[in-house]
């Protein structure tokens, strides 16, 4: 089970990268990048999971709070990262839009304005 969960994470990363490598469209490439990143989220959340544990939110104060909750730290890392990566993806898509306007095509292999 352990290998399966983390294997899914690694698979997402590799498949996303594969998408960028064989991409014929810039939007497709940027979305593949987002897929690669979602692999990291699966890994992080998977690392923090505990069987039978409850969410890390407490209803009432307790002198010895219940430690039988899932790991809040990875959740904190993931949630900020999700929001932030949405804007970085927006940034890359903005570049793709402008390229399409200037070039008329979004095929990354046809972009030849930078070449040796």
């Amino acid at each position: 089970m352990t290998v399966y969960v983390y294997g899914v994470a690694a698979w997402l990363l590799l498949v996303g990268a594969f998408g960028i490598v064989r991409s014929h469209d810039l939007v497709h490439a940027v979305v593949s990048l987002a897929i690669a990143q979602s692999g990291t989220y699966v890994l992080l959340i998977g690392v923090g999971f505990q069987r039978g544990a409850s969410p890390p939110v407490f209803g009432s104060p307790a002198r010895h709070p219940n430690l039988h909750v899932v790991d809040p730290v990875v959740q904190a890392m993931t949630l900020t990262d999700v929001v932030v990566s949405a804007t970085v993806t927006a940034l890359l898509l903005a570049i793709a839009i402008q390229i399409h306007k200037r070039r008329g095509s979004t095929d990354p292999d046809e972009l030849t304005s930078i070449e040796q």
Partner: protein
Amino acid sequence: MSRRIRLFLFCTAAAAVGALCLLAFFDMPSFGSTDHPYRNLAIPAAVAHATSNVVSAVNLDQRSLDTFAEESILIASVLAVATLLRRADDERFREKGGGRVIDSTVLTGWIMLPIGLVVGLDVVAHGQLTPGGGFQGGIVLGTVIHLMYVAGRYPILRRVRPLRPYEWGEAFGTGAYACIGIAGVFVSGAFLDNFLPGGSFGTLFSSGTVELLNGAIGIEVASGIIVVISRFIDQAVGIEPVRDDMQSGCTSSHTTAAGDDV
């Protein structure tokens, strides 16, 4: 490099990397185990500062510098989008007429708008108590206002969403976070110290600076998302080239000050 060679190179390398990861996964602690040392330290620390939502405590109290970096990334990306999608010299802004939207969509939009706004504000305000917080609530607020666009009321949206106040909102959110941090330096000698009184656990006014930082982030994220989405919509709906040919030629092209927003 031809595509075939590129694919071959990538697949070979990715297989090697995948194999390495697989070997590593066999050494990982088992999925769902009980061994989480950071959690065992984070929870008492959160409770000591009267914050019920431990995730918010980790984000805004214990690892507040990380969140500061993340919100800076957000404002950087929004600024970059605003820069990249600005109206260039050879373009102009002209509003095109809206398409046809069916009545049920319009009705749903009008109903969902106030509900969404309230939900978003609630998620932001109660970030220290229940799952949620500035990031999540900010996204809700930022996107729900665009129901106006979905409901085919783009002109209303443009009037309701002049961009400058939202850019200021974004600036205010980031600036407030930084200033609260610097205030911590002057009050207790540590940047981003949680120097406000904790209040009683589980009530609205608890957790010290966590709720203030939550609010700042909520304002920033909501404003930032509105700016980003509106720039994209403007590109799709409003901006068109002035001339037929889009080559700007060799003329030294000063881009306009982006005063195209209303």
